[in-house]
């Protein structure tokens, strides 16, 4: 039996929360299949972070410390992963489904000629075999993926399980990485442009989706309700992609992550990337014509109906209630 290799990520000098979630998954698989958990930490000046991971469930932690790894770089990171694979001989490799995971994990799978299970929310062990659970069709259908051979590479959704926070003594092993010529070069990271709209501070957000049909409908239907409730207007990704509203209105994993007292989702089906951005709201009302829309799974109150009928009447009723 091979080992399980956790590819950890560094954020602000520490091993990020999502990597400790990978440790939870790895330990679950390890306990059920008698595999040892090992980890890779890469970056520059990361030995303290690697040391900490080795004391908190990461098992034998390989620490690849190199100036070329200071910022995420595909070739440098892949070289570190190759060295860690050579040292750990894993047959299960776990990566977080994050921007660097999107870039790196498929490259690891293809180089190992391995099965790839991306963006999973859980893993089951059945008779010693692994089954990965993930969503298809933007969250509308679930699936069970079974590798037909090993090794297998999987990426796990951040937040899909609790981060491991027990004490479990491992050890840190420095890992020498030979980083050859680089085909990609990190230039810079840009923070999103200054926001005219800070949705994170709004008590009430009324958001609209693609089924609004056009930018003018946001002014005619969504904004009046937001105004009546003293709140802000938001939108789902397809709305911003279509250029109906600027990016600062986007709620979701690639936009703003919000948790208002009330979130009203109008004509939003509830793609995962949107749900990630709003499911922590205190109270969620969803209005959608499709009764099977995933948004109803996270909402507290739902209306299955035509938003063009419901929302304007709700706006009038809210105004009337305020007197």
């Amino acid at each position, binding site marked *: 039996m091979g080992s399980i290799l956790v590819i950890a990520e560094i954020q602000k000098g520490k091993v990020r929360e999502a990597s400790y979630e990978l440790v939870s998954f790895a330990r679950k698989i390890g306990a059920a299949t008698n595999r040892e958990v090992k980890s890779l930490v890469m970056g520059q000046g990361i030995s303290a972070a690697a040391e900490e991971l080795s004391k908190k469930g990461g098992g034998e932690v390989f620490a690849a410390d190199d100036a070329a790894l200071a910022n995420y770089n595909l070739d440098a990171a892949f070289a570190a992963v190759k060295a860690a694979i050579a040292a750990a001989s894993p047959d299960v490799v776990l990566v977080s489904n994050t921007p660097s995971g999107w870039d790196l994990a498929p490259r690891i799978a293809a180089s190992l000629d391995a099965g790839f299970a991306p963006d999973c929310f859980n893993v089951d062990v059945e008779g010693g075999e692994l089954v990965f659970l993930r969503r298809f069709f933007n969250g509308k259908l679930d699936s069970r993926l079974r590798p037909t051979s090993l090794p297998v590479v999987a990426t796990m959704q951040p937040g899909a399980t609790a981060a491991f926070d027990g004490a479990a003594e491992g050890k840190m092993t420095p890992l020498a990485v030979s980083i050859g010529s680089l085909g*990609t070069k990190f230039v810079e990271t840009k923070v999103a442009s200054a926001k005219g709209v800070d949705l994170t501070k709004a008590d009430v957000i009324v958001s609209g989706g693609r089924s609004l049909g056009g930018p003018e409908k946001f002014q005619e239907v969504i904004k009046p309700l937001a105004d009546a409730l003293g709140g802000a207007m938001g939108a789902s990704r397809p709305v911003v992609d279509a250029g109906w509203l600027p990016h600062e209105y986007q709620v979701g994993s690639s936009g703003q992550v919000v948790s208002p007292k009330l979130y009203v989702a109008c004509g939003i089906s509830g793609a995962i990337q949107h749900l990630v951005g709003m499911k922590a709201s205190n109270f969620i009302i969803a209005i959608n014509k499709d009764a099977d829309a995933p948004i109803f799974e996270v909402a*507290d109150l739902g209306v299955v109906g035509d938003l063009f009928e419901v929302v304007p009447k709700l706006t009038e*009723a809210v105004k009337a209630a305020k007197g």
Partner: protein
Amino acid sequence: MKIMVCIKQVPHQDARLDVNGAGTWIQEENIKFEINPYDQNALEAALQLKDKEAGTEVVVVSIGPERVTQSLRTALGMGADRAVHVKDGAADGSDSLGTAKILAAVAKAESPDLIFAGFMSDDGNLAATGPMLATLLGIPHTTTAVSFQKNGAIQVERELEGGALEVVELNTPCLVTTQTGMNQVRYASLKGIMAAKKKPIDVKTVADLGLAGQVGADAAKIKIEKLYTPPKGQGAEILSGSVDEVVGKLVGKIKELGLL
């Protein structure tokens, strides 16, 4: 310069999704298909380069049954120069790696300077094929591009979490996967659609590509054992009644929350 664009035909965003009898994929009969939205941005990125640089050839590649011809014609109508259609039941059931192997065989024959692919497909959401293809070809890649510039070097802005961006430079040849919203996708003009009728679609089988037995369901390293409607959790309390009744209940709740 030669640019290869990988496109996938996927169920239309509004298509009804029912699981098939075997419980392993959706029922594909009688539903509408379209070019994967992410791939439309990939194609647009290639066509914008073609508009800028004379002598640029754009080759679109797709895998799938006869219905895929429609999407390839659309791409040619938008301005691609020619198409390669891998049309072979032996490709059915390929996992991401199998798909990447097929595309790699096409890419080796074409030797493009640049490959664009959508970040993910709207059906599988796997986001694997593009980077796997680059890996098999031994070329650099980057993912989730929201902007692309070629002034000598290739520079891409890629999307990180929370609206942050990372700027990356790539050597050529390379592969870039594109995010939705990266550009405004053009429509095929009537003139373009007419011209597309004369543009070649090169049909290939898996054997033509030297991959017999190496791709398809039997060669897949991972399989969809079961596809199913997610179990309903607590879920929302669905309000019933007339629109006026429903609105009354919503206002009551909003008052209860102390927001009125």
